[in-house]
C-alpha cells in the first residue's frame, strides 16, 4: 500500500454534526490534507469553515480556485461550485449540477482518485441521497482506500448505505472511530511529521 497523499470526505444531510466530530477527533499533527465536500444551500456563506476552525488546531481553508494542497490543512468546498483535485492544488468549476448537487461529492472523489491513484482515502459520511458512492468506487478502483460511516450511526443512512452497496470492501466504522482510523491508515505519512504533496 502506497502512502496517502489526500483524504476526501463527503457529507450531506446531518453532515455538520458528523464533520464536527470527525474534525475534532483529528490530532493537531494530522499531516495529510483533508478536503471536505458538504452539500449545502446555494447561498451558504463561510460559516462551515469557521465552525470547524473552532474545533481544531489544523488550518481550515475556504477553498478558492487553484488553492494549493498543504499538510495539516482542511479544505472546504464552497457552496455552488464543484471542487476538483489537481496535481498539488484544488480547482473550482461552475459546471452544471451533477444529480442535483453542486458541489458534488462524486466529482471531487473521481478527480481525487485520478490525481492521486493509490494514494487517496475517500470517506462517506451521513446523507439522504447517494452522492459519493460512485466516486468512492472510483477511488478504490484507482487503488485508494474507502471508509464509510456505519449507517446505524448516521443521521442520514441513505448515503453511507449507497456507498456500501457499490464499495462493499470499504472499512465500515461508527462515526466516533473514523478520526482514529484515518490517523492509523495515514500513519506512515504522519509519523514523519511532514507529508509531501506533489506540485
Amino acid at each position, binding site marked *: 500500500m502506497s502512502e496517502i497523499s489526500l483524504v476526501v470526505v463527503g457529507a450531506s444531510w446531518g453532515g455538520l454534526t458528523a464533520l464536527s466530530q470527525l474534525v475534532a477527533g483529528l490530532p493537531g499533527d494530522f499531516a495529510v490534507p483533508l478536503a471536505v465536500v458538504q452539500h449545502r444551500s446555494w447561498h451558504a456563506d463561510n460559516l462551515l469553515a469557521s465552525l470547524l476552525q473552532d474545533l481544531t488546531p489544523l488550518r481550515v481553508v475556504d477553498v*478558492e480556485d487553484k488553492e494549493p494542497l498543504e499538510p495539516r490543512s482542511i479544505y472546504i468546498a464552497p457552496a455552488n461550485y464543484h471542487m476538483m483535485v*489537481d496535481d498539488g492544488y484544488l480547482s473550482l468549476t*461552475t459546471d452544471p449540477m451533477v444529480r442535483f448537487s453542486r458541489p458534488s461529492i*462524486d466529482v471531487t472523489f473521481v478527480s481525487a482518485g485520478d490525481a492521486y491513484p493509490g494514494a487517496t482515502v475517500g470517506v462517506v459520511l451521513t446523507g439522504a441521497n447517494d452522492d459519493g458512492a460512485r466516486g468512492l468506487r472510483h477511488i478504490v478502483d484507482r487503488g485508494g482506500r474507502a471508509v464509510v460511516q456505519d449507517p446505524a450511526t448516521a443521521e442520514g443512512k441513505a448515503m453511507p448505505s449507497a456507498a456500501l452497496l457499490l464499495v462493499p470492501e470499504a472499512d465500515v466504522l461508527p462515526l466516533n472511530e473514523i478520526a482514529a482510523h484515518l490517523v492509523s491508515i495515514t500513519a506512515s505519512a504522519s509519523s514523519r511529521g511532514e507529508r509531501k504533496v506533489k506540485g
Partner: protein
Amino acid sequence: MAVQVDDAVPSAAAAVSRYDPELERIEIELLLEGIYRSYGFDFRSYAYASIRRRLWKRIEAEGLHDVSELQARVLHEPQIMERLLLDLSINVTAMFRDPSFYRAFRERVIPILRTYPFIRLWHAGCATGEEVYSMAILLQEEGLYERCRIYATDINEVVLQTAKEGIFPLDRMQEYTENYIAAGGKRAFSDYYVAKYGGVLFSPSLTKNVVFSLHNLVTDRSFAEFNVILCRNVLIYFDKTLQAKVHGLFYDSLAMFGILVLGSKESLRFSPKVECYEQFNGPEKIFRKAR
C-alpha cells in the same frame, strides 16, 4: 438503491490495472494539440482536472474506451469535434449572479465611476450575456449608463449571438427577480423585459451602449484601455500558467486605479499580479489597480 450512471466516470472496472496517469496525461496533451492544429481551438492550457472530466464525458457518450480513441475520431470526424466543442465550452451564467457583488459594486465602485466623464467597461468571457444585461440595468439605475461603453466579448460566436438578441428563458425569471432584489434593484425587474417568443426579451435600451465582439483571451491582445474589467468564473477553467498570462493582459488593459472584478471564489493570491492591486474591504472580489 439504484445508482444511475449519467455522469462521466471512466469505466474503471476495466481500467483498474492499466490506469497510468502519466500516460493519460500524454494522451490528453496529444488530443488537445491535435484539436488545436486541426481545428484551431486552443484548450491546451485549460485546467486539467476539469477538461479531463469533460473529455471523459464525451468518451462515454460516444461509447469509446480511452482518450486515444477519442483523438482518432475527433481528427477524422468533424461532427464529433462539434459535439466535443459543446462539452468543452459549457457556459454557466445567470442574471445578477452573486447579488452581494452587485450590491457592493453599487456601494463601492459606482461613487468612483461617477467622477469620470466617460467610462469603459469590459466584460471578458460574457457567454450568453446575462451579466452584461445585469450591469447595464445597474448603470441605468445609477444614472451612469449614458456615459458608459460596455465591451462584451467571448470566444464563442454562438453564445455572443444569444447575448445580442437579449432573449432569455422565462423559467429563470423568478430566480433572476430574487437576485435583482437582493442586488439592491431599484425598480420592478419586470420593467426591463417583455414576454415574447416563449422567453423574455430585454429592453433594447440596455444594449444601446454595448459592443458585442469576438475576443479570445488565450490568443488575442488588449484592444483598449478600460476603467472596469469584469471576468467572473472564466479564469477558473484555465490552468495557472494561462491565468497568469490573462492577468497580465488585464493589467495592461486597465487604466491606473481601474477596477478588476473576479468571481466570488477566485483569487489574485496565486497570481504574479497580486502586488499590483488593492482589494476593497469585504469578501467581494473587487480589486483596484494601484501600481
